[in-house]
């Protein structure tokens, strides 16, 4: 990426050659270079990234103070199995979300077929379902005592499990399918936005040069969407690594199992923190790998210079195939679990209806809106700074601010709890010292703590999404704007923002929906008698009383629908 801040560079450059000359000054030079690079980095980026990474630092500190005895024990006994399970799980999930998300994105971005307008937004719905709720409904349906197997046994006259083979839902494969069904919308949404933002002229050119639609897809569209696909998949994998509820319900022991075992079983938060940090390191190396892969492949687009849209009109069997594929995904990922929940909700309505549900929904909604808005703003700031001065510090801080997503939710909540309570104690001590009565826990004991945790966790979504989107804006645009004397701020508002609007809206939507269904932070950090929809659902779900949790779960989906429909419209009608 070209360095655009030429003015500042040339102002400082006269000093450096003198120092370079003498070899003995090498070390001083590197320190100076380090300091200068620090100075050049935007302070705001560093500040935001530092705040976002504080919970991580806290966990790293925690990891260092423990003796790690239980870590040793786990390592000697079960850790190897846990790691294998985690690797297998993430691999299966990655394959599944790619196989579902990318074809869907392409079909809906570039083809005309029956039901397209409906599928366009409906295929995002599964995202609003908490994965563990989907897992519960499918287990009810498919395990040995479920209606499917009971029906099969009656039909064929089988009497015991030895008489036949049936897919074991409570397995790594089962967990991977559940997670993929809920998480594929990340890949679908980001990739679709990327396909839509692509310059149609490129595909047109490929077609005119004789490439078939398939070939032009693989040679032109897919490479251009690469960053978005990788970004979506990375998010899915982070969420998979951090998941506990689903794998725990399916009796699949992964690294999160080890984290919770050491913490809650061995009372060894230090070892749990250590394991979490190792998981984050794993994720960081994954992100570095992506960065290294992408670096030499400039995939920036010139701004849409044409009004052309690629539009294949599918007819005959192709039309039906596209319809069936979309329909099947929607059926499995959304309709079946939603119907099951709706049935429970109707049957148990008298027991579960509570007028307070509206308040819980409002609480969830407000938290989700604030989280989405602030996370988007922060990510825009980080991405913009990175764009203005591509710099090791900038991209480093961007990456750092994206790692919270891979930490198991409750552990992250502890990471937020510790600095906030520290702050609270400090403030209260100060008040008492100054002769006032203590204020109470204003940071850690309020909604503020929940929003903080959500921000740390979900800003990664906006970061990934915007980063991928920024990469597609041609640097020549920035140069042209600069040449015409546009300020950096104007460049962002007038040129970048309109170009990344789609991805930005998608990111905001994703964060909203994730925040709506996020449980651990709200559960642990909430004020007294404060419920969100997920905490309400959890008190029944944790008792495996899905029927009582059903109405709350449905409401999570319904509230998630509101921005979904609104945002989808604005993505399509640009």
């Amino acid at each position, binding site marked *: 990426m070209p360095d655009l801040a030429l003015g500042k560079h040339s102002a400082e450059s006269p000093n450096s050659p003198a120092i370079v000359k003498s070899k003995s000054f090498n070390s001083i030079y590197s320190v100076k270079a380090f300091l200068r690079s620090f100075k050049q980095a935007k302070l705001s980026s560093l500040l935001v990234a530092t705040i976002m990474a504080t919970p991580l630092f806290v966990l790293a500190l925690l990891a260092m103070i423990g003796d790690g005895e239980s870590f040793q024990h786990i390592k000697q006994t079960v850790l190897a199995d846990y790691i294998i399970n985690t690797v297998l799980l993430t691999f299966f999930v990655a394959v599944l979300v790619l196989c579902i998300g990318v074809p869907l994105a392409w079909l809906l971005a570039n083809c005309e077929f029956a039901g397209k307008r409906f599928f366009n937004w409906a295929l995002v719905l599964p995202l609003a379902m908490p994965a563990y709720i989907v897992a519960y409904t499918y287990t009810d349906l498919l395990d040995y005592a479920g209606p499917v197997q009971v029906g099969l046994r009656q039909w064929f006259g089988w009497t015991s499990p030895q008489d036949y083979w049936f897919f074991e839902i409570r397995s790594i494969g089962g967990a991977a399918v559940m997670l993929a069904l809920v998480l594929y919308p990340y890949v679908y949404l980001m990739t679709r936005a990327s396909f839509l933002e692509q310059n149609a002229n490129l595909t047109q050119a490929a077609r005119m040069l004789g490439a078939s639609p398939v070939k032009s897809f693989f040679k032109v569209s897919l490479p251009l969407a690469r960053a978005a696909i990788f970004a979506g998949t990375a998010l899915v994998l982070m969420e998979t690594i951090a998941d506990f509820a689903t794998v725990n319900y399916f009796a699949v022991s992964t690294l999160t199992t080890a984290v919770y075992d050491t913490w809650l079983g061995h009372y060894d938060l230090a070892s749990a923190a250590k394991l979490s940090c190792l998981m984050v390191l794993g994720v960081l190396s994954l992100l570095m790998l992506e960065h290294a892969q992408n670096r030499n492949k400039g995939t920036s687009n010139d701004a849409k210079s044409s009004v052309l849209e690629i539009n294949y009109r599918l007819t005959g069997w192709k039309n039906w195939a596209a319809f069936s594929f979309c329909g099947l995904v929607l059926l499995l990922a959304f309709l079946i679990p939603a119907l099951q929940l709706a049935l429970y909700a109707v049957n148990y309505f008298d027991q579960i209806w509570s007028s307070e549900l509206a308040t819980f929904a409002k609480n969830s909604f407000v938290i989700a809106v604030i989280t989405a808005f602030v996370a988007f703003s922060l990510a825009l700031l980080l991405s913009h700074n990175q764009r203005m001065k591509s710099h090791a510090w900038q991209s480093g801080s961007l990456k750092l601010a994206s790692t919270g997503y891979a930490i198991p939710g409750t552990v992250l909540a502890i990471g937020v709890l510790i600095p906030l309570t520290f702050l609270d104690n400090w403030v209260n001590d100060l008040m008492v010292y100054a002769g006032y009565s203590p204020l109470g*826990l204003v940071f850690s004991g309020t909604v503020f703590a929940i929003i903080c945790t959500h921000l740390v966790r979900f800003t990664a979504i906006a970061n990934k999404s915007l980063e991928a989107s920024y990469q597609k804006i041609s640097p020549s645009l920035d140069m042209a704007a600069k040449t015409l004397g546009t300020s950096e701020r104007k460049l962002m508002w007038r040129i970048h923002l309109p170009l990344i609007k789609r991805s930005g809206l998608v990111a905001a939507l994703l964060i909203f929906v994730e925040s709506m269904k996020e449980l651990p932070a709200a559960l642990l950090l909430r004020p007294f008698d404060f419920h969100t929809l997920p905490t309400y659902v959890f008190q029944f779900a944790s008792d495996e009383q899905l029927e009582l949790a059903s109405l709350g779960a449905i409401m999570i989906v319904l509230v998630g629908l509101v921005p979904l429909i609104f945002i989808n419209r604005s993505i399509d009608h640009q």
Partner: protein
Amino acid sequence: MKKTLVFSIVALSASLLTGCFGAKETEQTAAEPQIVNVYSFRQDFLIQPILDKFTEETGITTKVIFAKKGLIERIEREGKYSPADVVLTSDFNKLLQLKSEGLTQTFDMSVIESDVPAKYRDEQGHWTALTKRARNIYASKQNVTDQDINYEDLASESFKGKICTRSGKHPYNLGLIASMVAHKGEAETKAWLQGVKDNLARKPQGNDRAQVKAIKEGLCDVSLGNSYYFGKMLTNPEQKPWADAVNILFPNQSNRGSHINVSGAVIAKYSPNKANGEKLIAFLASEKAQQAYASLNMEYPVNPSVQPSELVASWGEFKEDDIPLTEVAKHRTTALKLVDEVKYDL
């Protein structure tokens, strides 16, 4: 620079707004004297009816936070400004952990002396148990005729491929395994646990009720489960058929007795409303609340003057394992290690 400012202001003001919003709430609660703040490991819907009775009787408002993980860290980090008055736990290990981490304080036990037998109270006065439950064996009516089964028998050859349990690391199973260690020593317990694992019909999964459901479906013949689940299944129309398929057995009746676990309560170290907290605990141990525990949650009251509910009583009287809970708790870590060593859950 300007845009940075704009962003920072937007981000900050949004956060502050919510911060202040919440802050006002806590301030109000701090000013209100007649309240008691409860941190609970038990689900809201289980305890709320009983807390409501308390409010009705005393006029003291209860405020609740329920979570399953991390509450102890929260109290610890909140330090001397923690609003927590009473902590309710669903198992005795949490009671002891709270005490050993220095998060509790002694409270006036004289009020509950007649309500709670000494073995269910802390000697130093830091905690009290409120309800108890046995760790039962549920056995298929159809396939199991022997009604006198010991926990030890679950490792025997005759149950090969016939046992279902939840995760070995669940507190209820850990409690049982720790009591085995206390009685039989580590080596013998490990051999026993390996034997049980080898007899499992399927990988440990689901909760205690799910195991009874599996028995009904013919996947296995025996399972481990807490006593109150039997009552809850019998009163739930959908789950009644599961419960009808099994007998509830009290293990080790001809020797040491069935393993007992308890739920309980402590007063938090920095409790701002200690007097109200003590009132709440006294109420929870009193006949009225114990009656409610017995009939709503199907648990055994710790208060000797309160009878179990009619349904629970119909399962018969049984001999409890009398080993002190503190003795069992000492072996909790060992139990956890054994579960990993025999890879019980894998």
